[in-house]
């Protein structure tokens, strides 16, 4: 009951004191405002980044291994990987034959070209050469028609499966199936259309592409034979063993002697996630540093103004003590005051940060979550308590006679 009374009185007095010094209180919160705006924006941006990343990273299946010449994120210097031998179709077929860990395995290569249909054309379309298993490996959603068959791949048939953007662009009012699409001098018959897949990391539009048999791609469009072997593993739990098996098979396929280093890499989604986590941790720690600095400076400001407030109200403290306020009651009063000042800063900050997060939406799927708003308020109240501690302590320790003498 006592504590409740003291809290209530503290809140009432603080509010009156803050209202009596509106301008001063608001100016004091500037540092806190900056700090809280930073936390909020950082938090929102990181959450948005996470969301965007996880959404688009799903295009790389977590259970798919990518055997390629280079590692996606390696520490190997470029001059060591520059002269590596290409991965050939023969090597890929050897892996396909030997690997026991594969549920599905496809051989892929790609390039960017202009694609035409009649007088329409699309530039920078990703042309992917694949095998009949590519659909299974990449979990391609087929909306209409079907995917390439093994016969079509082996026979290097001029067929293609097109992305949804291409289908919309070339065949807005008619079925795409059976139509022909031209890439350079060759023309391909559309046998399937994939469903909308979105973007990959904001740079690659997964719907702005067409898939053709790899055999066709290598004869029609690219001379340099360097393929990616994509292996969807049978059992996610055994993915590490799968990596080892594939490594062993690849070494044999490339005729490496026992002492030689691997001249290829086995990439996986995990690498992406780890790298991303590193990047976002860096962003977060920079953000945290700025936030910490702003809150520190803000906290000093609050402490300063609270010392002023305590000094100005020395007589009031004396009066309260004379009528029986204990140390705790005085302490609570000033802690609440500085917490409330900071909370006001927090609210101002949220009011500023909200439109800014809406602006962020142009780049990220960011939205200010309730938890971030709550965290921001918590942090500001905490800053208030911490910076108000010494002034409150001084107030609580005042000698009542001295305090009452104060003019």
């Amino acid at each position, binding site marked *: *009951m*006592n504590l409740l*009374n*003291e809290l*209530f*009185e503290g809140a009432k007095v603080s509010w*009156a*004191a803050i209202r*009596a010094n509106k301008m001063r209180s608001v100016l004091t919160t500037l540092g806190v405002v900056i700090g809280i705006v930073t936390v909020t924006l950082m938090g929102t941006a990181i959450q948005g980044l996470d969301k965007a990343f996880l959404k688009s990273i799903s295009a790389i299946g977590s259970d798919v291994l990518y055997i390629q010449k280079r590692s996606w994120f390696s520490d190997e210097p470029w001059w060591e990987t520059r002269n590596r031998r290409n991965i050939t179709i023969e090597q890929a077929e050897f892996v396909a034959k030997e690997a026991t860990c594969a549920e599905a395995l496809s051989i892929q290569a790609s390039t960017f070209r202009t694609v035409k249909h009649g007088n329409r054309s699309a530039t920078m379309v990703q042309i992917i050469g694949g095998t009949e298993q590519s659909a299974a490996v990449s979990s391609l959603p087929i909306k209409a028609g079907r995917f390439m068959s093994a016969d079509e791949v082996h026979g290097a048939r001029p067929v293609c499966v097109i992305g949804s953007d291409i289908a919309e662009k070339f065949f807005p009012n008619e079925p795409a199936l059976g139509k022909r699409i031209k890439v350079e001098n060759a023309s391909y018959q559309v046998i399937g259309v994939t469903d909308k897949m979105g973007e990959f990391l904001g740079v690659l539009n997964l719907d702005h592409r067409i898939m053709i048999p790899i055999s066709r791609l290598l004869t029609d469009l690219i001379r340099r034979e360097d393929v990616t072997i994509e292996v969807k593993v049978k059992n996610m739990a055994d993915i590490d063993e799968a990596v080892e098996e594939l490594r062993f098979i690849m070494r044999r396929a490339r005729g490496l002697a026992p002492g030689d280093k691997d001249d290829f890499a086995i990439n996986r989604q995990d690498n992406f996630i780890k790298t991303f986590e590193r990047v976002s941790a860096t962003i977060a720690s920079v953000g945290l540093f700025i936030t910490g600095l702003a809150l520190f400076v803000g906290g000093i400001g609050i402490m300063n103004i609270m010392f002023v407030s305590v000094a100005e109200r020395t*007589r*009031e403290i*004396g*009066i*309260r*003590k*004379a*009528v*029986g*306020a*204990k*140390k*705790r*009651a005085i302490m609570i009063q000033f802690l609440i005051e500085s917490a409330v000042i900071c909370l006001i800063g927090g609210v101002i900050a949220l009011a500023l940060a909200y439109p800014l997060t809406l602006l962020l939406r142009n780049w990220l799927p960011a939205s200010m979550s309730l938890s971030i708003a709550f965290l921001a308020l918590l942090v500001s109240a905490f800053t208030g308590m911490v910076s108000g501690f010494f002034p409150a302590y001084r107030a609580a320790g005042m*000698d*009542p*006679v001295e305090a*009452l003498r104060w003019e």
Partner: protein
Amino acid sequence: MIVFDKIFKLYQMGSETIYALRDIDLHIERGEYVAIMGPSGSGKSTLMNLLGCLDTPTSGTLRLNGVNVGDLDDNELAEIRNHEIGFVFQTFNLLPRSNAFHNVELPLIYAGINTDERERIALEAIEQVGLLDRMYHKPNELSGGQRQRVAIARALVNKPSIILADEPTGNLDSRTGSEIMSLFDLLWERGNTIIVVTHEEEIARHSNRIIRLRDGRIAADEVINGATKSATPVAPDIQRK
């Protein structure tokens, strides 16, 4: 109820030691109406601060209702001030931003009394000093006499065993001063113990006992108005002084 035993209060000012009080022995009983007089600097306020547990003596023992005040820590002293003491100051010492009602209920807040009960008790105290119609005014909207009434209501509100007043009429004109004094008389008649510091003989004559200080010592201690040392509360219908 109040016992001073060889009380000294010293202040160290640089190399100089000021004896604000020296060797004070004093008994004050429940129900007494005491005036403390003496020239400026003689130690009256110092004595009152000790009585009010706002301060502790440098040496000697001070007992209040049998409790040795010297043994208490700050929080226990605060509790005694809250429950046993009502203090009235020359300069009123009201919270400037709070209205009369809030000023009066303040001791009850620190006593942990709930809102409804608080309102009832505070209104009772405000009624006793005749200020119900000014209860929502802030101190700067009240006259000096009214402010002192608020301060008296605040001093009363916790039903303390002692009411202390350090020159309560010092900032008031003589008419208002005597109104305030008749309020103290009334409180005394209702059974309160009252100790008043004053410069004016006329004010001091409201009491039953005058203690005169000089240079921190008790120079005289006389019973007046024929009251006995263990004054019993006088029935309210008896003519007021």
